[in-house]
């Protein structure tokens, strides 16, 4: 296995609300090899966004990391003091957020927001930083880069703003880029442009960890995929294996829901029931309530992530044993 640029080991994080502890992230292990694009897919509330924000140290009150480590290029970053964490954020590990409409400071010029990281980490003089920003704007495909530098966020369209976000994240050439639902808020034609841009970024050697609920985006971009459900990883495999031979009932449910949409016909495949409440997760497998193959064993003990061969792992008592469909 070549060296992993980012490794998350047994990460757990919870929200401590008045009503009790919400276990949003539960013993999650993720590896992002150098120069690869790794995806985390799951429905809303499954903890995928929490996981990456926890490892970036961006959890807001009342969220807190409860356990586990995050290794960036061979250095543990969760236990670092705040000063050193800030030194890494934006320099070695950077993040692009979901909604370009609200992720840029409305009262500050776009150019200034992009050069800010350079001044923070490279204390680069303003003129040089501006040149760097113009080059980066051109790299991410923003027309009239020089003029755009001085405009305000509300003067740019959604697509342009997301390109600015990507430029802002890439300006210090980070080792790892985390993208939290980067194209969800965009229209499909603009989304295609941004996805193509992200593919190009990866070819320049940056490792990318992308979060999405859209299976299409994951299929087009990722080399390796983790599927999350109710705070836990239920299946992980390289993209081709996952899409062709999904083992976990939840993954199969997701894939058949999506493909039945495209097949037409009357009845769409669905996953019955609702996502369990994270305050009181059911004993045993958290998918047991909605799984049609659920048996006594599923309700009692929580299956652990079994390796089924060439990097394909699944968290299910029955899916593992040669059940490849």
């Amino acid at each position, binding site marked *: 296995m070549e060296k992993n640029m980012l490794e998350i080991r047994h990460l757990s994080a919870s929200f401590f609300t008045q009503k009790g502890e919400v276990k949003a992230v539960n013993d999650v292990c993720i590896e992002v090899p150098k120069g690869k694009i790794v995806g985390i897919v799951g*429905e*809303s509330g499954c903890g995928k966004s929490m996981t990456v924000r926890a490892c970036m140290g961006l959890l807001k009150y009342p969220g807190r990391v409860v356990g586990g480590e995050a290794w960036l290029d061979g250095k543990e970053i969760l236990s670092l003091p705040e000063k050193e964490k800030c030194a890494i954020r934006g320099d070695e590990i950077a993040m692009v957020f979901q909604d370009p409409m609200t992720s840029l400071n409305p009262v500050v010029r776009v150019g200034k927001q992009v050069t800010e990281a350079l001044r923070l980490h490279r204390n680069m003089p303003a003129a040089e930083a501006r040149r760097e920003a113009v080059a980066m704007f051109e790299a991410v495909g923003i027309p009239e880069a020089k003029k755009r530098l001085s405009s305000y966020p509300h003067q740019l*369209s*959604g*697509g*342009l703003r997301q390109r600015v976000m990507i430029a802002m994240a890439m300006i210090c050439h980070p080792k790892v880029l985390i993208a939290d639902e980067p194209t969800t808020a965009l*229209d*499909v*034609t*603009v*989304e*295609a*442009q941004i*996805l*193509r841009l992200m593919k190009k970024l990866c070819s320049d050697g940056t490792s990318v960890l992308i979060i999405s*609920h*859209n*299976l*299409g*985006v*994951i*299929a*087009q*971009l990722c080399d390796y995929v983790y599927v999350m459900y109710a705070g836990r990883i239920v299946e992980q495999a390289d*993209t*081709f294996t996952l*899409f062709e031979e*999904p083992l976990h009932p939840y993954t*199969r*449910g*997701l*894939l*058949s*829901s*999506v*493909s*039945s*949409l*495209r*097949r*037409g016909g*009357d*009845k*769409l*495949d*669905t*996953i019955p029931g*609702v996502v369990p409440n994270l305050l009181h997760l059911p004993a045993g497998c958290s998918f047991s309530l909605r799984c049609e193959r659920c048996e006594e064993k599923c309700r009692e003990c929580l299956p652990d992530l079994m390796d089924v061969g060439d990097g394909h792992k699944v968290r299910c008592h029955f899916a593992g044993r040669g059940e490849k*469909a």
Partner: protein
Amino acid sequence: MSDHVLLEAVNLSKEFPLSRGKRVHAVSDVSLKVYEGETLGIVGESGCGKSTLGRLLIRLLSPTGGRLWFRGEEVTSFSDQAFSKYRRQLQLIFQDPYASLDPRMTARDIIAEPLNAYHVCPTKKATTERVLELMEAVGVPGEFLYRYPHQFSGGQRQRIGIARAIAIDPALIVCDEPVSALDVSVQNQILNLLRDLQKERGMAYLFISHDLSVVRHISDRVAVMFLGTICEIGPAKDIFEAPQHPYTRFLLDAIPQPDPRRRDEEVPLLKGEIPSPVNLPEGCLFHTRCPYATEKCRRERPVLRSEAGREVACHYRVGATLPQKNSAPEHV
């Protein structure tokens, strides 16, 4: 899908005034028919005017131009009061399950509101029974009768919105992005529900969405909108399999296919940004982004011409000549 017309619009347009004399051309001369019991899908990117069109057709917004017929009777110049006898036949479902239900009312009162507005049931008890039937019909447990909206999940709230819409047996329900805010598994549950309700009660749907695969599944006919106008309208199967307008073709190619085997196909992408609806370009609205635009496109705005059941607003119907794409292979 019967063949007599429920609703017809001719050259319908709507402009919103902006500061300093500028105007936003939300919808510009759209003509379309909605047949009884059919599902007409309206698809397009944000800002293309699909939501505005939806509200124009049920007269929640009054048009600045064009004419509107409801079951053969012209209603363009009807006052709100005069139109109220048709209001009951036209209902609306919203995208945001959290904002479309009054947080201060219980589920019972929300669903009962249309019933009370038209005095459908004689007594309060009968109304409650009718509400319970409706809740069963949309799959919300009866014991949540007196719960407040914030005590429901997103999917359940959307079901309550649907129950409210079907309470007085409308002839047409405009669904404005009803499933866009939901996850795919819950989304499919709602789409199945809408399909079953249509089979039972025979009402027509005007299904508005930016998600092409959802529209493809649920619609009989589809209209593709761009910058306030309809660039292509026709049976769903033909539109998705053999699009003729270049914009439709680019729209279809842009969808990220959930199939890793098709990831390295270098598909031609639309360049540039979505133009602003304030100063519309001359000639064909799409010519600024269309790679095949000719001098004629820049000067003359194409009109919707119908050919073999399909209406396309493009001089050259270039979409048909682009590399033919087979539909995605099926999954397990």
